[in-house]
C-alpha cells in the first residue's frame, strides 16, 4: 500500500489523535460512538463491494438494510432472541437481493432502476406490514434483554483499565461493543482475503471487469453474479439487524436514514477496496459522531453547523468522483447485464 492509498487512513488517525490531545474524555466518547455508528456503514459498504466488484451496481443497499432492520426487530420481539432476529434480518435482505438478481442478472434489466424500486419497496412494505402487525405507526415494540445484542466486555478489559494510553484505548474503545461490531471489523480482512487470495475472488473480480473472459474460461457469469448479490444480501442483512437490535432497541420507520447511500459514498471513496472501506466508513462515522456531539462546532475562526457535517460525506464523495483528489474508477463491466454472444 503506497502513501496515496493510505490517504484516508492518515486523515482519520490524525483527526483521532488531535481530538484525543484536545479533549481526552470527549474524544474517547466520540470515537467510541463513531465505532458504533460506522458499523452499519462498514457492513453495507462491504456488501456493496462484493456486488459491484462482480459488476452488479446496487443502489438498493438502503432498502435492503431497512427491510432487514424490520424483519430482525419483528422476529427478535416475537421470539425474544436477537440471534433469530439476525437470521430473519438476513432472510429479509436476501429476498430483496433475489429480486435485484432476477431483474439485473436473469432479465438483464436496468440495475439502477431495480435498486430504486427495491428502496421504495422496503420503505413501503416495512410500514405497511409493521402497522398491520403491531399497530404502532410502523414501529416495532421495544426490544429488551436477549432480544437485543448487548455490549460484551473483552477479556482483560478491567485489568488494563488503569494503564496509561493502552487502558483507555483497550477497555474504553476496543472493548464494550456488541458482537456484530467485531463481526463487521473481522469482515474487512476476510473480504480482502476472499477477493484477492482465493479463486472465487479472482473470478468475482474478473466478472466485474470482463465477464466475457470469465465466460470463455467456462465459468458461469450468472452463478458468480448471483453469489455476489447473495453475499451482498447477507451483509446488508447483518447491517440492518445491527441497526434495529444492537444500535437501537427496535425498528422505527425509515430508520436507515440514508445510511445505505452513505455506504455507497464510502464505497466510491474507498475505490472499491476493503481496507480503504474500513477507513472511509470510519471517517464518515467520525463525522456523524462529531455532528452529534457538537451541533455547532466552533473551530475558532468559523462555526460549522451540524447540517454541514451531515452533508460532508456526500460533498466529499462528489469531490472524489470528480477526480480532483485521486480518481475513483468503478469496475469496468459495472451496471451492464452480460449477454452471451451467439
Amino acid at each position, binding site marked *: 500500500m503506497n502513501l496515496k492509498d493510505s490517504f484516508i487512513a492518515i486523515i482519520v488517525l490524525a483527526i483521532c489523535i488531535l481530538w484525543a490531545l484536545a479533549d481526552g474524555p470527549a474524544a474517547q466518547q466520540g470515537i467510541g460512538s463513531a465505532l458504533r455508528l460506522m458499523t452499519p456503514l462498514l457492513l453495507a459498504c462491504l456488501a456493496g463491494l462484493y456486488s459491484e466488484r462482480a459488476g452488479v451496481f446496487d*443502489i438498493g443497499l438502503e432498502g435492503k438494510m431497512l427491510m432487514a432492520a424490520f424483519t430482525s426487530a419483528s422476529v427478535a420481539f416475537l421470539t425474544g432472541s436477537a440471534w433469530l432476529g439476525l437470521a430473519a434480518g438476513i432472510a429479509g435482505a436476501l429476498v430483496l437481493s433475489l*429480486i435485484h438478481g*432476477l*431483474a*439485473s442478472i436473469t*432479465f*438483464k*434489466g*436496468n*440495475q*439502477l*432502476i*431495480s435498486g*430504486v*424500486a*427495491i*428502496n*421504495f*419497496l422496503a*420503505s*413501503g*412494505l416495512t*410500514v*405497511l*406490514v409493521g*402497522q*398491520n402487525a403491531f399497530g404502532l405507526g*410502523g414501529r416495532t415494540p421495544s426490544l429488551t434483554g436477549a432480544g437485543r445484542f448487548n455490549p460484551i466486555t473483552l477479556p482483560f478489559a478491567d485489568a488494563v483499565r488503569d494503564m496509561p494510553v493502552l487502558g483507555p484505548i483497550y477497555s474504553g474503545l476496543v472493548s464494550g461493543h456488541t458482537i456484530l461490531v467485531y463481526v463487521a471489523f473481522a469482515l474487512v480482512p476476510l473480504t480482502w482475503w476472499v477477493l484477492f487470495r482465493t479463486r472465487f475472488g479472482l473470478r468475482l473480480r474478473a466478472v466485474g471487469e470482463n465477464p466475457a473472459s470469465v465466460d470463455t474460461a467456462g465459468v458461469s457469469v450468472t452463478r458468480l453474479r448471483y453469489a455476489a448479490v447473495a453475499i451482498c444480501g447477507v451483509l446488508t442483512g447483518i447491517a440492518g439487524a445491527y441497526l434495529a437490535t444492537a444500535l437501537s432497541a427496535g425498528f422505527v420507520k425509515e430508520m436507515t436514514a*440514508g445510511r445505505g*447511500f452513505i455506504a*455507497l*459514498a464510502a464505497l*466510491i471513496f474507498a475505490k472499491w477496496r476493503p481496507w480503504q472501506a474500513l477507513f472511509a466508513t470510519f471517517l464518515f462515522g467520525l463525522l456523524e459522531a462529531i455532528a452529534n456531539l457538537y451541533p455547532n462546532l466552533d473551530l475558532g475562526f468559523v462555526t460549522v*453547523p451540524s*447540517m*454541514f457535517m*451531515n*452533508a460532508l460525506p*456526500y*460533498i466529499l*464523495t*462528489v469531490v472524489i*468522483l*470528480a*477526480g480532483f483528489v485521486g480518481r475513483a474508477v*468503478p469496475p469496468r463491466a459495472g451496471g451492464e447485464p452480460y449477454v452471451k454472444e451467439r
Partner: protein
Amino acid sequence: MDKMPKWADVILTPLISLVLAMGISALVILAIGESPWVALTTMVEGALGSSYGWGFTLYYATNFIFTGLAVAVAYHASLFNIGGEGQAAMGGLGVALVLLNIPLPHWALALPVAMVGAALFGAAWAFIPAILQAKRGSHIVITTIMFNFIAAALLNYVLVNILRPVGSMDPASARFPEQTNLPALTDLFAAIGIEWGRNTPANITFFIALAACLLVWVLIWRTRLGFEIRALGKSEPGAVYAGINPVRITVIAMLISGGLAGLMAINNVMGESERLVLNAVEGAGFIGIAVALMGRNHPFGILLAALLFGFLYQGGGELALWTSIPRELIVVIQALVILFTGALDNMVRMPLERLFLSRRRTGGA
C-alpha cells in the same frame, strides 16, 4: 428485426406491467387481512368521486408531470437523473427568494418571474452533476443522489438560519406577499359560475404543466436539439461521428431536466403552501422516475402516468383516513410499478415478443 407492432410496445407492455403491479399490491392487501376491492373503491371514491378529490388528484398530478418530464428528457440523452428531488427542492428555494425579495404587484407578473427563479435554481443544481458526467465521467446517478442529500442539508440550513422569520420556531420561510398567490382552479370555475373543488390546492400551474408536456414533445421530436439529445442517447460514438458535441448535449439535457424539476416548485411552493417549508417536495422527485418509466418517456404517456399517480396519491390519503391500510401502500405500488416497467421490463416483454413472433409465423405461412 421488428418483433412487436408499435401499439403493443407502447400500450400493451406498460399496461401488463401495471396489472402485475396492481395484482401484487392486491395480494399484499389480502396478506394484511384487508379487502383489495374495498381498498380500490375507497381510492376511486376518494380521488375521483368528487370535485374535492379531483382537486387534489390534479394537484399531485401537476407535480408528477414536471418531475416525470425531467426524468424523461435526461433519459432521452441516456442519462438517469435521480436528482429530481433535490432539483425540485432547490427550485422551491428559487421561488421563495424571488417572491420574498422582488416586489411584484400581481400574480400574473410574479408567475413568470418565479418560473425563471424555479427553473434557474433547479437547472443550477443539475449543472454540477452534468458537467462532472460530461467532462470527468463521474457517474451521474451517484452524483445526483449525493446532490439530493446536499440539497436537503442546504435547505435545512437556509430555512433554520436565514429565511425563518424572527420569533418563529417553524423551519419555514415567511409567507409570500398576498398579491402573488396563484389563483386556484376552484377560483377559475367560480368565475364562470360553477362550484368545483373548494379548498383544494389544484391551481393554474396545471395548465403550465400541460404546456410543458407539449413543449417537451416539440423539443424532443421536432427540433434539432431534441434530435441531438436522442442521437446521443442512442449511441455516443454515432453522435460524435455525426458532429454532435457530447459534452454540450449532456449538459444542456441535464439543465433542461433540472429546470423542469425545479418548475415543480411553482405548483407546490408558490401555488399550494405559499411559503417555503421543510421537505416541500415530499418524494415527488422520485415518483417522477415511476411516471417517466410508465409513460415510456413520452410526454403524453407521462401525462397519463402522472394522472394515475395523482389518483394513487390522493386515493392513498383517503385509504389511510377511512381504512386501517396506511398510505405507505402507495409507496409499495410505486415500487412495483418501477420494478415491472423499469427493471423487469424484459420479463414482460420477452413472452410478448415470443407470442407476436409465433403469431406472425403462423399468419405468414
